[in-house]
């Protein structure tokens, strides 16, 4: 096998005459490479690279796994092994919506109404935990303790912790995010 051989995500050899269309953009590659000097091994860049891809694409397609592996001199299976350990990364079949709503179900929140908030949010968006609304706006997931127990019940919506939730504040939030 020479270095030019390309492999598809499902392990097939890609014929040489198929034009190569990388999934990772130059920007993504540059950002991934900017992490190299931080660590003595390239493998340590697996998590940063997966974050970079999921932040942009709302999921990690298998082509990205192959290309990350190539950049980090790893086998795709090694990258996939790490990815699959964390329930955090999404496949293209189940991409994240525009807003990822992580509702805490751990002890401090649950006993201040957190479980009901999760149920309420699911009901009002008509999804189950783990699903995304049909319009691609909201993904609802349960979270374990978000480290915001002083504001229980709480949820993380993308970058922001939403605190002391009630059904009313959940309604308002959903309404205001829908307008954006």
């Amino acid at each position, binding site marked *: 096998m020479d270095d030019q051989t390309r492999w598809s995500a499902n392990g097939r050899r890609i014929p040489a005459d198929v034009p190569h269309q990388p999934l990772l953009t130059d920007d993504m590659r540059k950002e991934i490479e900017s992490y190299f000097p931080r660590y003595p091994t390239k493998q*340590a860049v697996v998590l940063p690279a997966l*974050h970079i891809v999921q932040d942009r694409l709302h999921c990690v397609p298998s082509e990205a796994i192959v290309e990350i592996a190539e950049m980090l001199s790893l086998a795709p299976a090694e990258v996939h092994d790490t990815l699959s*350990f964390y329930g955090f990364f999404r496949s293209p079949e189940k991409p994240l919506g525009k807003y990822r709503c992580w509702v805490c179900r751990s002890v401090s929140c649950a*006993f201040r109404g957190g479980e009901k908030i999760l149920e309420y949010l699911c009901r009002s968006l008509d999804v189950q935990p783990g699903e995304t609304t049909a319009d691609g706006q909201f993904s609802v997931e349960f979270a374990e*303790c978000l*480290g915001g*127990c002083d504001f229980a019940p709480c949820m993380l919506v993308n970058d922001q912790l939403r605190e002391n939730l009630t059904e009313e504040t959940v309604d308002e939030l959903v309404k205001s995010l829908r307008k954006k």
Partner: protein
Amino acid sequence: MPDFEPVLLKRLNIPDVQRLDVYKGQGGYQATEKTLRQHSPDDVIGIVRDSKLRGRGGAGFPCGVKWGFLPSDRDVTYMCVNADESEPGTFNNRILMEGDPHQVIEGIVIASYATQASVAYIYIRYEFVKAFHTLQRAIDEAYQAGYLGQNILGTNFDLDVYLHRGAAAYICGEETGLIESLEGKRAWPRIKPPFPAVEGAFRKPTVVNNIETLACVPHIVERGADWFQSIGVPSDPMNPRDLGSYGPKLYCLSGHVNRPGCYELALGVTCRELIENQGGGVWKGRKAKAAIPGGISMGLLREDEFDTPLDFDSLQKVGCLGLGTAAVVVFDEQTSLVDVLYNSCRFFAHESCGQCTPCREGTGWMLRIVKRIQQGHGRVEDLDLLVQVAESMGIMPGTTICGLADGAAWPVKNAIAKFRNEFEDAVNSASAKGANVSAATTSSLHTN
């Protein structure tokens, strides 16, 4: 107890103290200057050892002693700062990183100098978005001001600090799970020994410390080991295994109290004092039934045990695993402890990394048994069965690689021992419902 002046949170309400100039105006970075100019690395290890600072991340191991385990002939040393903070009920690392990031950086610089680490990785849980950005800004400022990077303060000490984001897995807080995750692998904890001090990140000697532990270090260097020991609970001279509980501690109070929050107090406050004085009492004018004393892994305190001091060595005397993360979660009299245990078992079944069979399977079994009790399908023999499963898993019985299994099992054993009546009632009211229950429960054991 003598009056206590906050140490770690004292700058928290100063506007913009996250900025380097404001922090310096409050006396910030003086400890770093003093350390790098006046002390040798071994001096610093000595001071920290003498202070008897114990790790704040859960295990309570003496910090200076741990630093002393580094082999003397090492070439590279890594510092791994544990900011994975995921033990339910715990949020003091978040408060420190968001509220006073330079204090955290100062702790990292001094600890890295003491241990001669040239790179420090701050492993921060993904969900701490605000803390991540706050800390990154502070790190950038510290580089510009010469507190990080090459030749810090004109000495020949170099240090790079990098933030490394996790991906929402509790097990990454276990120190060797953290290291594996940092290395880009699945976060499967390693068998110890070798301990990280000998073989840690990238197979090199590594120090792992919690954010709060490190935040204590600048104050210890500045004010001395004696000052630190003037706060807290002295060791019991009759008990050589009691290492004392010295210094300030950030208690996280949540659950059914009027004022949840992070409160800095001298180690050794009682659970009742914390709830009454800081928490403003139990919410809705109710009485308390129980409390978690230090994160969900530690077990439960009954209301009549609330006068127990929350220090490193007292909680064991009332059947809890220890102080843990000093996260107190209060439950009022209307709370079902079957529900609490269900919540706990669900957490651990979800977070077990799956590497050891007794933990992977045991957490699942415990969850399903507690679930059927909660749903009214419990059987009389279930309580003993639960205890039996719990007793078979963990480092203590020697069947697992890491302490997650002990933390999963302890609340089960502890809740059933302390609240057996409540669990028996739940089971008995179930068996009163009739015979078709047992068919339903047999199948429920194999689903979920």
